[in-house]
């Protein structure tokens, strides 16, 4: 049997099995989840390879599966991140309510994602896309919070996206008489311009929804927040990348030889605006998870900007950031999840100073935040650098400015996140909190170590990315294990950075902790602080957490006043009023209905000349 099918079978079967296993016994279910979490990546990394393919016929359609180098890159991300989050969930999910549904949807959405990546034709792509969508919808509403609002919003936007994609697919099929992606690429030039634009835009809308690009992003913050955090890691880290994958596929593969590829730059602009706006919103969040949710939207904005810009370096940056965002946002959500599980809330105004209670979690979060902020010497910097360079090299200067504003403002929420949860005053209420169990900590630490490694040796994943880029038509992208190049020949050598920084840091550390340790030792609490000579009383609130960036908020208030969400809601309300009005057609009076019949008949008779063309 084909290895691709076996992989899908492991995931799909595992999903169903876990559902039924949890129906019978909790331990059973846990065992199945562990089994899937271990078996699927092991099988994937040992047995599945690029180039294997499997084609079959279903319902009269010729379908084909198989990885190419481009999708392989994303598959690597999914197959690392998802099993880790699955393992993490076994510790995270405290309540045993509907665990079967949870794990079913979780594994099934992984199934959907892998399916998308291995689809070599548009029908199976769409099928897996929809499967992924509804499986993730089940997880969005799993908590039951705000189902009517957030859940429906997610579903509406997903549906809008999916259906516009659907429309494009069938129109492409009309022109090509095939759903095969390779055929579509080959014959694309034969299509007339109008169809090219129509299908292109529709496909882009479809993928842009999942990657939360500006006007279509309003579902994302809510959905990311509402999802159980162990899945949010995959949701934001992996699932949203499917949109990125699709945008890349459309812009760089399907449409690369047509005029339509110019659209990329507009998309890049949208991405950059998304990044800025979402970052600004993230800065003012008081809920750590919501902060991360907005931050995800912003980061996806960068990625989309990278892909949309369409130069070699920018695409490289985009894909690299996509992978890395998966890793660091996965870590961050896991960290938040750990806090949520241990402290019961993620509200940064309620908890603080957890660094002593949860040092490992803090470490993982710290590394991930450094990566998020794009600070060397951790991996995030590499992607940011390449993105800036790409934008500068292609002389889209205002784009650079936007991206830069966004990533500078990202420092604000990065700090807020770490400060709000882990630093600051330690309150007595939070003193009893313990570190999360090992099944949760280990995945986080593993991911954060990966991030540190990326800071010096990003070449490890440059290699598959370069291979994937070749698939997209960027042959022979230069890459080096730890040197970054831009297109003007400037470069950054990451090893020097790491060596210099590491040396100074370590020397200083040795000095300050070992050599200069003769100083007096004080056992301090966070209440022992400089307060202009006064001793703070226990009831004094020394925790600065509300309205953290109030001045900044005042600066941005004209910009933040307009929420896209509100406009969508107003639009929805207007529609509902219209529908309510339409309901009145059905008056409830039988005679009226009879009158409709007669009127309709007479109208048809009167119009018959028009209808039948006589």
């Amino acid at each position: 049997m084909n290895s691709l099918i076996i992989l899908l079978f492991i995931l799909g079967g595992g999903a169903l099995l876990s559902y039924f296993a949890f129906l019978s016994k909790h331990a059973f279910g846990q065992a199945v989840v562990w089994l899937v979490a271990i078996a699927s990546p092991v099988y994937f990394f040992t047995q599945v390879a690029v180039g294997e393919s499997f084609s079959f016929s279903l319902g009269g359609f010729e379908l084909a599966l198989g990885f190419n180098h481009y999708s392989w890159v994303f598959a690597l991300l999914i197959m690392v991140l998802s099993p880790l989050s699955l393992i993490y969930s076994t510790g995270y999910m405290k309540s045993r309510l509907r665990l079967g549904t949870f794990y079913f949807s979780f594994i099934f959405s992984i199934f959907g994602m892998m399916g998308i990546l291995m689809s070599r034709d548009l029908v199976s792509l769409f099928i897996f896309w929809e499967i992924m969508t509804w499986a993730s919808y089940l997880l969005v509403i799993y908590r039951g919070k705000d189902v009517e609002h957030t859940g429906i919003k997610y579903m509406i936007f997903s549906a809008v996206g999916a259906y516009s994609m659907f429309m494009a697919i069938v129109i492409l099929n009309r022109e090509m008489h095939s759903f095969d992606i390779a055929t579509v690429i080959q014959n694309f030039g034969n299509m007339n311009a109008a169809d090219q634009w129509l299908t292109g835009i529709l496909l882009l809308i479809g993928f842009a929804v999942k990657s939360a690009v500006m006007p279509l992003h309003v579902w994302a913050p809510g959905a990311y927040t509402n999802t159980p955090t162990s899945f949010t890691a995959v949701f934001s880290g992996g699932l949203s990348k499917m949109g990125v994958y699709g945008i890349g596929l459309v812009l760089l593969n399907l449409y690369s030889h047509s005029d339509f590829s110019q659209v990329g730059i507009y998309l890049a602009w949208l991405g950059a605006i998304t990044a800025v706006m979402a970052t600004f919103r993230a800065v003012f969040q008081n809920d750590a998870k919501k902060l991360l949710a907005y931050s995800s939207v912003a980061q996806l904005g960068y990625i989309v900007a990278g892909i949309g810009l369409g130069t070699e370096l920018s695409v490289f940056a985009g894909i690299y950031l996509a992978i890395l965002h998966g890793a660091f946002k996965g870590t961050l959500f896991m960290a938040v999840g750990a806090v949520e599980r241990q402290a019961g809330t993620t509200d940064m105004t309620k908890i603080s100073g957890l660094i002593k209670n949860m040092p490992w979690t803090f470490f993982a979060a710290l590394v991930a935040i450094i990566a998020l902020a794009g600070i060397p010497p951790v991996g995030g910097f590499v992607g940011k650098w390449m993105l800036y360079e790409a934008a500068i090299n292609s002389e889209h200067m205002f784009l650079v400015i936007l991206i830069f504003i966004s990533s500078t403002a990202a420092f604000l929420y990065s700090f807020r996140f770490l400060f709000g949860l882990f630093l600051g005053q330690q309150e007595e209420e939070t003193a009893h909190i313990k570190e999360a169990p090992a099944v949760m900590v280990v995945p986080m630490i593993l991911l954060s170590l990966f991030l540190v490694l990326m800071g010096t040796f990003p070449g490890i994943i440059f290699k598959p990315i370069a291979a994937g880029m070749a698939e997209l038509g960027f042959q022979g992208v230069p890459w080096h294990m730890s040197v970054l190049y831009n297109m003007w020949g400037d470069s950054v050598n990451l090893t020097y950075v790491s060596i210099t920084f590491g040396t100074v840091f370590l020397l200083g550390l040795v000095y300050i902790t070992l050599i200069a340790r003769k100083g007096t030792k004080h056992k301090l609490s966070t209440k022992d602080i400089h307060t202009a000579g006064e001793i703070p009383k226990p009831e004094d609130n020394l925790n600065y957490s509300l309205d953290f960036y109030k001045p900044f908020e005042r600066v941005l208030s004209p910009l933040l006043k307009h929420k896209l969400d509100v406009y969508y809601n107003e639009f929805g309300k207007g529609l509902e009023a219209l529908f309510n009005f339409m309901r009145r057609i059905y008056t409830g009076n039988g005679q009226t209905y009879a009158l409709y019949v007669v009127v309709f008949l007479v109208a048809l008779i009167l119009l018959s000349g028009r209808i039948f063309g006589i």
Partner: protein
Amino acid sequence: MKKLVIISLLLVLGYSLMNTFSDIEFGKKREGISSYFLEHSPDDLQVANTVTAIVVSFRGFDTLGEVTVLFLAATAMGTILFRRRSKHTGLNPQRKSPQASRIVQAAGKLLFPAIMILGAYVFIHGHLTPGGGFQGGAIIATGFLLLLISYRQFKVEHKYVTWIESLAGLSFVTIGLLGMILGPHNSFLENFLNVGSLNDLLSGGVIALVYIAVGFKVGAELTGILDTLINIRETGDID
């Protein structure tokens, strides 16, 4: 205003219908399948009344449908009107309609047998003379109607009605099914008996039998419906 609108709508409708039908000259002979019927009804079936031949044989399926419609109507009325018949009589136990006059009562009693016989004659001779099962059944029902309006206390025994209508319906279908087994083409409702000769009482093979069954069925059915409508008892259900 609304009425004016409706009238003008109806005028348009009428005009277009008139427009369609006015091309068909009244009383003109036209080509069609009817000539085949007029040819084959006396020759193949030995049935004098072509309408009967059409109703029972050529379009026998329609007739089965009609019978079913009647049966349905009776069942439907039962469903709609009577349910949860409570033992203790409800709000309005007695019909308030006044007793018919003595003359009516006497005449009713007198006429009833004659009407019965007439009805029976009509459906038995359905294949020979104008009329048939439906008409005969309707005449029989008229007889019962007469009794129902003359005597307030008169009640049709539903048990018998049920038996008759069921048996009559069953025999219709059974004859049809027998046609599938015994008939030369093995088709439903096909004649499998000796057709006799034209204008004999015992002619037309199964057609006569079917029409008699139809007559019984229609008679019973209509009687049942009339009885239902007249003897609506308040049944104490909480609508």
